[in-house]
């Protein structure tokens, strides 16, 4: 039933269309069509007479369809449809041909072609219209609730207006308190009201209004649904404090040892990790900020809470610090002495000067506990029937034994050495790790029931017996076999391993007056060298690369140097002779697989005299017996799968035996994983793949770093050191431990030290609290996301990197009576009151090269205000203001500007500042005064940058969830800038405040009330009407294949199980048409966008002539 009596109405739009397009000719051409009953033009079709013309023509010519050729359908489609409806024509029989935005304007320089294109577009529109159906809007129920996103002044106002009108309103704010940017301001222009006084009543109202449901510290996670029925998922970030219990007493903040830059004071002050943003916060509840796992904890293969025990040490609570270590690790004293501290390598204080001495802090608290007679309490778990044998009492074996006994398993540890500790006992010399410490820290394991069988060398036979007797076995046999170099005369040398073992077990040598050469560059080489030195020898370490490439721990090398060990670099052994060693000189070549430059032989030889040569060139596991019982190995190392299980089921392996000679902490970490998987194995659970590496992107806040060098430990005097095997490093003192801990930058935020947990009387703190999720259904949404300003650091040419060059927003905090300087501005660098100050306008605004092209609108006024307030605070001070133009267009604004000039003597210099540089402790602002044409230089104490305002960072993400458009900067795009500034193109979503574009408070509040009124208008209707342009199924040809269902993003399509055809849920369908493009039989179509309609238009548009 194609239409036969179509009316075409062509708008002149004054000259906008008719100036380019020959509208009269168009009408003439169109009227030639058989299906067109009437075609005419009019100067303004949207005007009253224009609409009347359409109405009259419909009646007069009995039109069955209308095409209006005018502007974009976003502007007047509704106007024209309403006109048609008034004349009794179904509004969906009206179509718009957009010949203004799409034809006359872009082609204004080519009237001829524009006219022909307009004709073609009208024809295409007629072809589409001809098959349009008469439709009635779909009725949908409306949920009489609203959501406001953003708790600044606009959001608060909108929520209050809605709530007062009886609409239950959900208010979501990302920060812990309401208030937004406004509550940070010192005073407001032009009335000089204090926001603390005028905004807090509104904040309190919003906080306690019976119709407002407040979600602070929360984000909108997801939005689905449609006008009248939006489903909103909200994520409330964990505050780690139960707000139902929190009384706001502040005890948690008092004891919290972690300082962070205050977000509220824009880094002009510090706050605790447990904090309330400001005194008038709503809700008045404390929040603990935890950003995640700090780099130290992440880098630790055992993932100890390093930041935690450092934080407790900072607070002087050493008992708590050791408890934090003990939570994860019983061997604090061992780790504190010999750990290779990957934590310190990852420490972000290292970016600044040097890493926090985390290991020494741990050692200090371990020693402190020992001195108090305290030791780790190991409470074995409920006794289990399963038995586990561990072969090897070294780092991996001890860790596994601990974890297994803690779970209640029966654990026996076998070791061939006469002492417990493995390499810790015989590989590491006692001056670094006394046996007494190992024994002290192993004692709790023995007390808890771990059996140690020493001097017991496992071979094939014994292994078979053990395997028979126990439910699981862990091989933690370490690397106790020396690697052979196959040098000539190698048997004349002694291996470092053997040398150290002999000394450790009391078989000392007298090396007084002897010359000793140690070959190698690792920790064993350094240990052997320092041990030989203590036995009286003259020691040289010979290494084939250079010092920087030595794998040994840097501190150890330094200690060796201090003690008098000599070094020879770029030499590699060739032959060991009766009285020395022959070495070949090396040079450095290209990088090898280890990432270091490879040593390359030069063919030059050198001889060293030596009474003893010690080879420290690596160790391998002694695994020959294991091979013979059928355990697979690879170059001596025991082969394991991802779960640390060997080729024999139930036999696990860990530590150096698996990884090759490494260090204590990795061996312990593998031991722990092995224990974990053994427990899974014994309980018939799924094993977990080993995951030791973890990365943290968090970096500390340099702003809070106070300058302090790394604390050094107390060491025995050199003379004593080289004469004995007594421990040479005595660790930190209590004072230096606290000082050292204070250097921590708190990368992770809250360190979970637990001081606050004990301090909180109402037991509100839960450091394991997780984020919580909520769902709300609302009928309308108001987006009030606000703005932020560009950071000063972005403008180094204007001195943004100097401490006393700050943003105007930061300066607001210094002017605020509630701010860190109590309203008297002081320089961040030295706390002096600035006697001369410069305000620079348009920093990044109106400057597409360095910032944004637009004017940030509020800066002129707040800068004038700040200059005035500065004069209030510093009577003898002088303020200079560098501007391009003063834009003071608001009620009372221009008068305010004149007051600043005339009453306060602020010097306004018309000229944009081009450079700011430092001279001594002053800053010089360079500009050209455009009124006199002369360059000016002004020396000041402080500079305030009015940096450009930009949308909040989170807006783009949020806009995606809401499916509303934003412009290239991220400002939310309104439906029409002039006429529908409060609406977004998505029905039911409105905008308020600076999220749309920068506004002052007056405009934000007005817009908020406006948006609330818009939302109210929608929510006060009993039912809402929805565009009926939705999918429709021709059940005659639908095959029920379900491809439309797959394409639908809204779940609006189901397949009727009986009739085997697609069924569309009218309320859910949004009318995108993805289904129709997927349909192989053209059975599903969007009404009035049917495939044949579109194709007819396409055909017209594609014609060449």
């Amino acid at each position, binding site marked *: 039933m194609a239409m036969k009596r179509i009316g075409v109405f062509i708008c002149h739009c004054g000259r906008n269309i008719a100036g380019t397009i020959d509208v009269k000719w168009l009408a003439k051409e169109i009227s030639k069509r058989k299906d067109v009953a009437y075609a005419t033009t009019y100067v303004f079709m949207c005007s009253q007479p224009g609409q009347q013309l359409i109405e009259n023509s419909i009646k007069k010519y009995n039109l069955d369809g209308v095409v209006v050729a005018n502007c974009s359908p976003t502007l007047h489609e509704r106007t024209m449809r309403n006109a048609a409806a008034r004349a009794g024509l179904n509004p969906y029989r009206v179509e718009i041909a957009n010949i203004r935005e799409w034809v006359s304007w872009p082609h204004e320089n080519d009237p001829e072609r524009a006219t022909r294109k307009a004709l073609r577009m009208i024809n295409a529109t007629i072809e589409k219209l001809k098959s349009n159906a008469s439709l009635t809007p779909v009725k949908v129920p409306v949920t009489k609730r609203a959501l406001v996103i953003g708790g600044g002044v606009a959001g608060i106002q909108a929520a209050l207006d809605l709530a007062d009108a009886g609409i239950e309103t959900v208010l979501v704010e990302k920060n812990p308190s309401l208030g937004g940017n406004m509550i940070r301001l010192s005073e407001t222009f032009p009335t000089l009201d204090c926001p603390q006084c005028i905004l807090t009543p509104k904040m309190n109202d919003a906080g306690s209004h019976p119709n407002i449901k407040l979600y602070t510290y929360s984000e909108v996670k997801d939005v689905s649904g449609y006008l009248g029925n939006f489903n909103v998922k909200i994520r409330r970030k964990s505050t780690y404090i139960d707000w139902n219990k929190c009384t706001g007493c502040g005890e948690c903040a008092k004891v919290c040892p972690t300082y962070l830059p205050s977000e509220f004071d824009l880094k002009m002050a510090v706050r605790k990790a447990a904090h309330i943003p400001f005194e008038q916060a709503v809700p008045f509840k404390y929040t603990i900020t935890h950003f995640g796992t700090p780099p130290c904890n992440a880098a630790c293969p055992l993932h100890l809470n390093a930041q935690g025990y450092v934080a407790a040490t900072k607070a002087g609570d050493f008992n708590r610090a050791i408890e934090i270590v003990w939570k994860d690790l019983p061997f604090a004293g061992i780790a504190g002495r010999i750990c290779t501290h990957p934590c310190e390598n990852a420490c972000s204080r290292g970016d600044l000067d040097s890493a926090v001495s985390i290991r020494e802090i741990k050692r200090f608290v371990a020693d402190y506990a020992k001195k108090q007679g305290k030791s780790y309490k190991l409470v074995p778990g409920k006794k289990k029937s399963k038995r586990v044998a561990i072969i090897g009492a070294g780092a991996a074996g001890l860790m596994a034994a601990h974890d297994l006994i803690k779970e209640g398993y029966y654990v026996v540890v076998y070791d061939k050495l006469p002492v417990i500790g493995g390499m810790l006992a015989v590989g590491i010399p006692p001056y670094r790790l006394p046996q007494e410490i190992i024994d002290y820290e192993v004692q709790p394991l023995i007390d808890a029931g771990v059996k140690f069988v020493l001097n017991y060398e496992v071979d094939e036979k014994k292994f078979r017996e053990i395997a028979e007797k126990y439910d699981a076995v862990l091989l933690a046999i370490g690397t106790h076999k020396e690697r052979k170099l196959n040098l000539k005369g190698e048997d004349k040398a002694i291996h470092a391993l053997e040398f150290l073992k002999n000394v450790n077990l009391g078989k000392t040598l007298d090396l007084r007056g002897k010359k000793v050469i140690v070959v190698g560059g690792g920790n064993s080489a350094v240990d052997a060298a320092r041990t030989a030195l203590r036995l009286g020898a003259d020691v040289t370490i010979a290494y084939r690369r250079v010092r920087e490439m030595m794998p040994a721990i840097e501190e150890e090398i330094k200690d060796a140097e201090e003690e008098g060990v000599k070094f020879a670099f770029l030499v590699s052994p060739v032959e060991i002779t009766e009285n020395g060693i022959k070495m070949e000189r090396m040079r450095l070549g290209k990088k090898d697989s280890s990432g270091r430059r490879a040593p390359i032989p030069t063919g030059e030889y050198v001889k060293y005299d030596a009474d003893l040569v010690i080879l420290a060139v690596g160790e391998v596991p002694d695994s020959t017996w294991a091979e013979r019982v059928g355990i697979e190995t690879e170059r001596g190392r025991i082969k394991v799968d991802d779960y640390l299980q060997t080729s024999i089921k139930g036999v696990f392996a860990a530590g150096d035996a698996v990884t090759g000679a490494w260090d204590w902490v990795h061996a312990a970490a593998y031991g722990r994983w092995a224990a974990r998987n053994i427990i899974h194995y014994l309980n018939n659970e799924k094993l977990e793949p080993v995951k030791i590496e973890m990365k943290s992107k968090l970096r500390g806040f340099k702003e809070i770093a106070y300058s302090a060098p790394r604390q050094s430990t107390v060491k025995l005097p050199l003379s004593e050191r080289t004469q004995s095997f007594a421990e040479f490093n005595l660790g930190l003192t209590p004072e230096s431990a606290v000082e050292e801990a204070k250097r921590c930058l708190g990368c992770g935020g809250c360190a979970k030290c637990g001081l606050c947990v004990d301090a909180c009387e109402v037991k509100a703190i839960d450091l394991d609290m997780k984020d919580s999720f909520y769902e709300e259904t609302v009928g309308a949404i108001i987006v009030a996301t606000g703005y932020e300003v560009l950071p000063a650091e972005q403008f180094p040419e204007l001195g943004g990197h100097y401490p006393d060059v700050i943003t105007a927003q930061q300066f607001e905090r210094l002017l605020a009576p509630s701010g860190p300087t109590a309203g008297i501005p002081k320089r961040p660098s030295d706390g002096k009151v600035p006697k001369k100050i410069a305000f620079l306008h348009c920093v990044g605004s109106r400057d597409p090269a360095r910032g944004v092209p637009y004017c940030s609108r509020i800066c002129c006024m707040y800068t004038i205000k700040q200059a005035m307030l500065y004069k209030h605070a510093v009577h003898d001070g002088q303020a200079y203001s560098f501007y391009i133009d003063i834009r003071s267009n608001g009620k009372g604004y221009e008068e305010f500007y004149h007051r600043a000039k005339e009453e306060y003597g602020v010097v306004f210099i018309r000229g944009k500042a081009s450079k700011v540089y430092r001279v001594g402790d002053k800053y010089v602002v360079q500009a050209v005064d455009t009124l006199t044409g002369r360059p000016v230089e002004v020396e000041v104490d402080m500079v305030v940058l009015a940096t450009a305002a930009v949308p909040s960072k989170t807006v783009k993400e949020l806009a995606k969830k809401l499916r509303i458009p934003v412009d290239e900067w991220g400002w939310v795009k309104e439906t029409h800038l002039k006429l529908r500034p409060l609406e977004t193109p998505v029905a039911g979503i409105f905008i308020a405040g600076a999220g749309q574009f920068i506004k002052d408070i007056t405009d934000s509040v007005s817009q908020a009330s406006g948006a609330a009124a818009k939302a109210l208008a929608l929510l006060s209707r009993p039912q809402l009407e929805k565009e009926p342009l939705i999918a429709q199924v021709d059940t005659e040809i639908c095959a029920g294949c379900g491809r439309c269902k797959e394409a639908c993003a809204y779940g609006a399509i189901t397949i009727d199980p009986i009739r085997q055809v697609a069924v569309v849920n009218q309320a859910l369908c949004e009318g995108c048409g993805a289904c129709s*493009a997927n349909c192989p039989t053209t059975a599903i179509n969007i009404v009035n966008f049917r495939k044949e309609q579109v194709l007819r238009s396409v055909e017209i548009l594609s014609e060449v002539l």
Partner: protein
Amino acid sequence: MNKEEKQEPVIVGFFCNWCTSAAADLAGTSRLHYPSSIRPIRVMCSSTVDPVYLLRALQEGADATILGGCHPGDCHYISGNFKARRRVAIVKTVLKSLGFDDTRVRLEWISASEGQKFAQVMNEYTDYIKRRGQSEFKYIDSLGGDSNEQ
């Protein structure tokens, strides 16, 4: 009035209602110029563009087609633009395997605020198609014999 038209290429543009149509509006409002060779049709979403639309345009005489949608992740209909991307990829593959120039089907993400980009893309694409010359596809009589469908 149709003497010179033959020299201008014909490019049919399918523009989604929420992003690219709005960008075209903005380009017009900002009086940005681009050639009249672009012949636009507004569709609700890029995902509704059936491959047949693109082929039909080429078959009926267009030298090229351009499909404009919202940027990935910004689709008004959640994921319609991804579906469009897949369909365009298929059309291109089909054209290529039949020996036709697959650059005559183009997909662009142009958001509502990118009026400038809209005009720029239309200018560039017209120049490009001009250089490529007329499409050969229009000389194919029918695509599998459904030309009598109407």
